[in-house]
């Protein structure tokens, strides 16, 4: 069976027959009009799937698959949007999905990084932030800061901290947060978010886990094969001010 989390920028595809997990730029996939998935979630895969599941459900199901805590909040930030689900006693208590004014964070960071040739691995988190409303409203302040003499790394780090604050507020300011999606691979963002709460990084395959949980419940899979190979690590990252 083929599972796809079709994000706006990247698609995560898992073939349970071959055991192969691929992360492919979505722009390369969209040219293949004949592509088909057994289970999918995400903007770009709906028209190509036998079973399409909305992303919040995939996130909620996937987090239940990976997290054993009774109560927790999981936040997924992708290229275009962010979404969260909070569980109390493993019962979905709150959730939200912001694909407009809270979105575009991942996309903007990628563009900024490429434009200024910045490696997020090497940027230290900022101590104060640029006020950010979303991934687009606020980015002009990065340019202003650079024009005023800041080096790009500093300005972008302040922007990233602003994004972290918006994200933390968005999901209700929990003291501990599980993070998934493309931004969970951005060290500067994780460290910035870690100044606001404990962060446990789940990686980019959480929604795929949700799809597999669904497939298993519907009798199409006997177990979740991705769980044993994806190397999910849950490490708490903290940042000392």
């Amino acid at each position, binding site marked *: 069976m083929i599972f796809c989390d079709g994000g706006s920028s990247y698609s995560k595809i898992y073939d349970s027959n071959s055991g192969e997990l691929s992360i492919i730029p979505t722009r390369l996939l969209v040219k293949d009009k004949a592509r088909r998935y057994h289970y999918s979630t995400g903007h770009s895969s709906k028209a190509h799937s036998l079973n399409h599941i909305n992303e*919040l459900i995939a996130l909620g199901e996937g987090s239940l698959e990976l997290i054993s805590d009774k109560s927790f909040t999981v936040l997924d930030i992708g290229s275009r949007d962010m979404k969260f689900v909070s569980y109390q006693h493993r019962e*979905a*208590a709150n959730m939200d999905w912001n694909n407009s004014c809270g979105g575009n964070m991942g996309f903007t960071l990628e563009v900024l990084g490429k434009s200024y040739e910045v490696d997020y691995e090497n940027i230290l988190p900022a101590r104060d932030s640029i006020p950010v409303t979303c991934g687009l409203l606020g980015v002009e302040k990065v340019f202003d800061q650079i024009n005023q003499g800041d080096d790009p790394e500093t300005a972008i780090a302040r922007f990233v901290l602003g994004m972290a604050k918006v994200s933390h507020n968005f999901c209700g300011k929990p003291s501990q947060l599980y993070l998934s999606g493309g931004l969970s691979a951005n060290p500067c963002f994780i460290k910035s978010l870690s100044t606001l709460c404990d962060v446990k990084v789940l990686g980019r395959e959480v929604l795929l886990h949700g799809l597999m949980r669904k497939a298993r419940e519907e009798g199409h899979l006997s177990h979740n094969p991705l769980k044993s190979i994806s190397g999910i690590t849950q490490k708490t990252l903290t940042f000392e001010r």
Partner: protein
Amino acid sequence: MVLVNIHDYTGSANPHIPPSESLSHKDYYQQISDIARLENSERLIGFYGQPDQRTIDIFSKSGYSFIDLDIDFKSPNQKIVPQAYCHIIRDIINNAIHFKDRLELIICTTGRDKCDQGRNVRDILSQTGFRCIDASNINQRVLRPPLISESRGNLKDKVIRIMQLVYKPLTVEEESYYASMRCEPSFNYHGVPPQDIGLLDLFPDDCHIHGWTRLVEMGIPARDDLEWTVTNNRPTVYFSQSFCNKQIMAENLARERSGLYIDGHGMVTDSLRAKLEAFLSLRARQNGSASRQSRQTAAFGVQS
């Protein structure tokens, strides 16, 4: 005893009679009867909210038809109401102006039975040249049991039928039908009818109705204390229109009862749809155990 206020029922030069000049109960209904007798019953009576039932009945007996101005008829935007404002309030004013030539007068609700904006709407319509009767529904006595609210069936159809109760009572056959369709709920919907009524198509058929819509079915829209009540322990979606003063209640109820708070402005967005679908899907898991508890819950604890 002042129960209701009447505005410009004489069509005088002064289009607005302030509430301090309210009529007595008896005088009020007498004048309503006079208006209903004298006016042209081929024209429509506009209303918003759930007005005083006796006022509606008087016009109904005189042969008038009604138009619910709360409904989205896609009337042209008159740009009287700010863009960032309750869409239902905007619809009322846009509809009234759009249908002006066909409206005999407008029956307004301006008290605890509507929302705080009911008074502003009345004043704007009155100043715009409409003849307005202020017929707020202050009834405290339950007129009907919540048969539709607790029945199985398409939620949108149930809510539409409840709103039609203002001018179209249930037939005996309908009463029997809804009574026979009574069900245990898997979810509850709490709130007013959404401006984009299609939102309700996302809910399961065994969804019960609570909040203001339920109170309308029971004929007690001013019992706003009961808007804080949900009579079972099933997962509940608390809806309010964006920019509505009921938002604070809906959000608090959702937080206290682990429900889902949603608000909408205009068409249902993908984000809102996804949130609702996710809540219904993820919460469906817990419903097996909840249903057993719900059967032991009292039907409705209303003091009439």
